[in-house]
């Protein structure tokens, strides 16, 4: 049995019967939660079980054949988003499907629903469909195009049904996006927030890669005598360290870092495109022609067709190939050393600028090229530091989101901070509080509230938080118990008394 990882998405196999599957109480809950969109982590969250348990269970269920696991989740998972809101691709359908009775074309209906559903996940740039470095003119033009399409006046007197209010919401958001992005200070502030968010996302990806032991940038296996770094690898290094010009540090262009982390995971390695012999021959020709510097990688697939293979005897070819292999390996080792050195320097430079993200990134690349234990231990050290920075960033982000009353986002950020410091009861309580304010998943709020109380049973504040969660959830008895304990801990607290009066009334 293979156990899927938590970011994979199980789905039903059409035509298979459910009764053939084991149907214990837990299994049934899990089965109910499978909708082809939720990842295992999301399902775990929904049913309140651990992700490992769910993975185990789904692994067992797939054996029955009614469930299949997608090889990899469709889009790269966005680590920042709260697991309660699975980031499945926006679907148009269900109850909101195309309504032919409305005076509005089907594609526009679909677009409206799509935008409306995604509105909370789109940043200002994405909503207007402009790049992050778009100038004021481009932003304005995008907004005007948006208005010409989605403003309800463009459909005046038509039957828009429930779409009218949705269009108003969408247009309202586009206006906010335009207004923020066309004011210098507001845009700068928003960009700072976005870059902070991107940074945490990038970090998250980095750290989870390290945690899972996933090789984002695998060293080339020694047997594959690829003479040149393949397209799947080198561009990463190039992107991080351009061949010329000053180092790009993360905060300067956060979008770029994010992209660099995500891309390699998805991109297939072209290693198997050519068989080894063809490759060797191509290499031989190229080295023979003195074109060692043309390490542009991408030219490989095209090379054989550009120059027709030359006829050589077997021995001649073998000797030449061996010589070339040795030459190549020397060269490769040198190149690796140089690369490691460059990465280390870049890492140091980033450290000097207190850019831990950049530093960790470069060190991570550096350890791919060297076995030096000092470098490896430094990498671990920086990774640890990165974790702390990440933690700080999440806390900062959470507080900003809290101040903006974006409870969903705040809950997600606090939850991330909680992952870094699972023993911090304060953070657990903050997660609980934010989830309660969001009001969508009170069970999860209760779990965090309980955790905070468990870590620090003598805090009346934590108990009040938990009590409030129970109260919201309608679990009055539990609320009463928590609040009574809280009152024993702080007998003078008027708020607790008030809440208790309310609870008792509700019970009576």
């Amino acid at each position, binding site marked *: 049995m293979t156990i899927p990882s938590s970011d994979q998405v199980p789905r039903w196999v059409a035509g298979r019967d459910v009764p053939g599957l084991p149907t214990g109480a837990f299994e049934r809950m899990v089965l109910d939660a499978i909708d082809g969109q939720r990842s295992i982590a999301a399902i775990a969250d929904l049913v309140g079980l651990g992700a490992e348990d769910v993975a185990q269970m789904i692994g067992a269920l797939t054996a029955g054949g009614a469930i299949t696991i997608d090889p990899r989740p469709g889009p790269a998972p966005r680590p920042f988003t709260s697991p309660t809101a699975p980031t499945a691709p926006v679907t148009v359908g269900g109850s909101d499907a195309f309504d032919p009775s409305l005076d509005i074309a089907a594609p526009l209906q679909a677009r409206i629903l799509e935008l409306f559903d995604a509105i909370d996940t789109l940043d200002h740039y994405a909503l207007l469909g402009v790049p992050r470095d778009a100038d004021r003119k481009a932003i304005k033009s995008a907004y005007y195009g948006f208005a010409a399409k989605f403003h309800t*006046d463009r459909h005046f007197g038509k039957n828009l049904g429930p779409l009218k209010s949705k269009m108003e919401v969408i247009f309202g958001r586009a206006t906010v996006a335009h207004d923020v992005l066309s004011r210098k200070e507001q845009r700068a502030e928003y960009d700072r927030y976005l870059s902070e968010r991107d940074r945490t996302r990038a970090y998250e990806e980095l750290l989870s890669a390290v945690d899972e032991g996933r090789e984002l940038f695998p060293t080339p296996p020694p047997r594959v005598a690829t003479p040149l770094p393949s397209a799947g690898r080198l561009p990463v290094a190039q992107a991080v360290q351009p061949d010329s010009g000053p180092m790009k540090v993360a905060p300067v262009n956060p979008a770029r870092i994010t992209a660099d982390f995500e891309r390699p995971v998805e991109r297939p390695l072209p290693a198997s495109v050519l068989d080894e012999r063809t490759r060797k021959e191509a290499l031989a020709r190229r080295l023979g022609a003195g074109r060692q510097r043309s390490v542009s990688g991408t030219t490989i697939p095209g090379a054989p067709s550009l120059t027709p293979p030359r006829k050589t005897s077997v021995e001649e070819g073998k000797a030449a190939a061996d010589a070339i292999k040795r030459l190549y390996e020397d060269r490769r080792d040198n190149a690796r050393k140089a690369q490691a050195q460059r990465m280390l320097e870049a890492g140091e430079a980033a450290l000097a600028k207190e850019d831990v993200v950049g530093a960790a990134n470069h060190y991570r690349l550096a350890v791919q090229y060297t076995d030096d234990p000092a470098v490896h231990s430094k990498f671990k050290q920086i990774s640890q530091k990165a974790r702390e920075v990440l933690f700080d960033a999440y806390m900062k982000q959470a507080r900003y989101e809290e101040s903006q009353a974006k409870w969903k986002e705040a809950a997600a950020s606090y939850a991330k901070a909680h992952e870094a410091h699972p023993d911090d009861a304060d953070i657990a309580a903050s997660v609980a509080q934010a989830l309660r304010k969001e009001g969508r998943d009170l069970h999860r709020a209760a779990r965090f509230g309980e955790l905070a109380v468990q870590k620090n049973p003598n805090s009346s504040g934590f108990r009040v938080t938990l009590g409030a969660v129970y109260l919201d959830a309608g679990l009055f008895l539990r609320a009463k118990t928590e609040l009574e304990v809280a009152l024993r801990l702080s007998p003078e607290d008027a708020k607790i008394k008030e809440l208790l009066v309310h609870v008792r009334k509700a019970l009576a």
Partner: protein
Amino acid sequence: MERVIGIDLGTTNSCVAVLENGAPAVIPNRGGYKTTPSMVAITEAGKKLVGHIAKRQAITNAENTVFAAKRLIGRKFSSPQVKNAIATSAYRIVEGPHGDVRISLRNKTYGVAEISAMILQEMKVIAEDYLGAPVSKAVITVPAYFNDNQRQATKDAGAIAGLDVIRIINEPTAAALAYGFGKDLERTVAVYDLGGGTFDISVLEIGAHGVFRVIATAGDTFLGGEDFDARVIDWLVEGFQQEHNIDLRQDRMALQRLKDAAEKAKCELSATRETEINLPFIISSGRNEALHLQRVISREVLDSLCSDLVERTVDICRQTLQDAQLGKEEIEDVVLVGGMTRMPRIIEQVAEFFGREPCKGVHPDEVVALGAAIQGAALMDQKTEMVLLDVTPHTLGIMTFGSNFRGLIPQNTTVPTSRSEIFTTSRDNQTAVKILVMQGEHDKAEENELLGEFVLTGLRKAAKGQVEIEVTFEINADGIVSVSAKDMETGQKQAIQVTASSGLTKDELHNMIEAAQGEMLERRASEEDEASKQEAQRLIAEIERLFPQVEQIVASSDFGRDATEKARGILQRARDAVARGDAAGIKEHLEALGRTARMFRGVVQKTS
């Protein structure tokens, strides 16, 4: 497709326009004028007069002639602006049953919306006569700085006039639409609109995709041409007082003549350096001796009398640009709207402030109606690629503890929009909260306009500040405001759609609509009667003219004599009906008259 008319319901003059073959055009009234005075009068006989005929008799019937009703529409009787109007108006302004304003004419009281409706109805008739088809939909303009109550009252006036007001738009915005429509411009424009009663300044951006985006708007609803006139009147009255020791204000008729003369002089001074005001027999002295008023006023005198008024408009412009974080250099063109912008002093001041000569391409009296017609057409026919992104002219919010005002949607926010904020209770064990929805820019709630109120009940009993209530404001593209309040703990929710109050109740409005409809039918009927009467008279005259000739031609035959006898009878009966004013009788005889006339014409033609 049904045509939508655009109406500029002005303080002193109104104008109606329609989009024809893709181009907006002003519709002239029966007198051939493109604008119609916004005046309504009731004659001694109880007849309603609107427009030029009302203006012509204003001097002799000052107490029953309403001008500048727009200054009163949607206002509370207790407001200082209404107090001010009472002091300067010859007609009687009285308090209505809901603290609103009513106007008393010949022992009958009218709502202000009813008076405005008479003007709107006139504009509707002008359009119908021109288009030769009934019109039921209109876009009406209001000063940008009108609050929701004033807008609602204007909408009510439209309803009374039998118009479905599909949208109320702001005058400067309408002017910008007319300025930029179909020209494929991309620029930022300031519209300076100084009309008869109100001043508005709006800054708009005209961009790609036919988008007109209002960036900022501000103004003063009690600053306009009337105030300039008042300064001239004051100057004349004071001079007269010094000379004769008589206060001309005591005599309503004299005051009305002064008003006309002041307005005329002000207009003339836009073209000449000086002009004479000549009002013979303005008043009689105590000793039975008639006194005359005769004075020369120069442009310099007018400028100095009104310099502070002009300065006020410039201050508002300055403030508006500052609020919108716009520099003067970012304004690429300045459009002048409203009759007052013909005054050289104003053109100079505006040019000086913006650092550029104002645009000369638009007609200040017609441009607003043209813009309204454009917006109407764009709404009804979406092939016209144009979309107007308007803003809220005033901050919307609620009253909080200590009668403070807390704004949720700031002024100059593009609509549609929505905003939420969390409030808490202000008293211990408070179980209900009253949400007072207000509009205005003052921190103190009572200084702002109350739009509506509702109560959220069933709150958890708790110490003050413990219960959280989320208040959400929403404005849709039609300008309709919805407010909801939600108890964050219990999820209890209350919401209202704020219907601004025009000062009229639903029943009152309903009755007014019915009455106006009835009157309209009557008016249409009497117009028809008038037309048949004229037709009958024309035919009678023709027959009479041909009679001797026909009689001579057909005298030889019996049949002919018979026919002329019959014709004589028809003629006599028709004449009687006309003389009696018997509309039904006239109609009855029209056909016979027509037949007779045709026969007479035939006889004469054949023999000549």
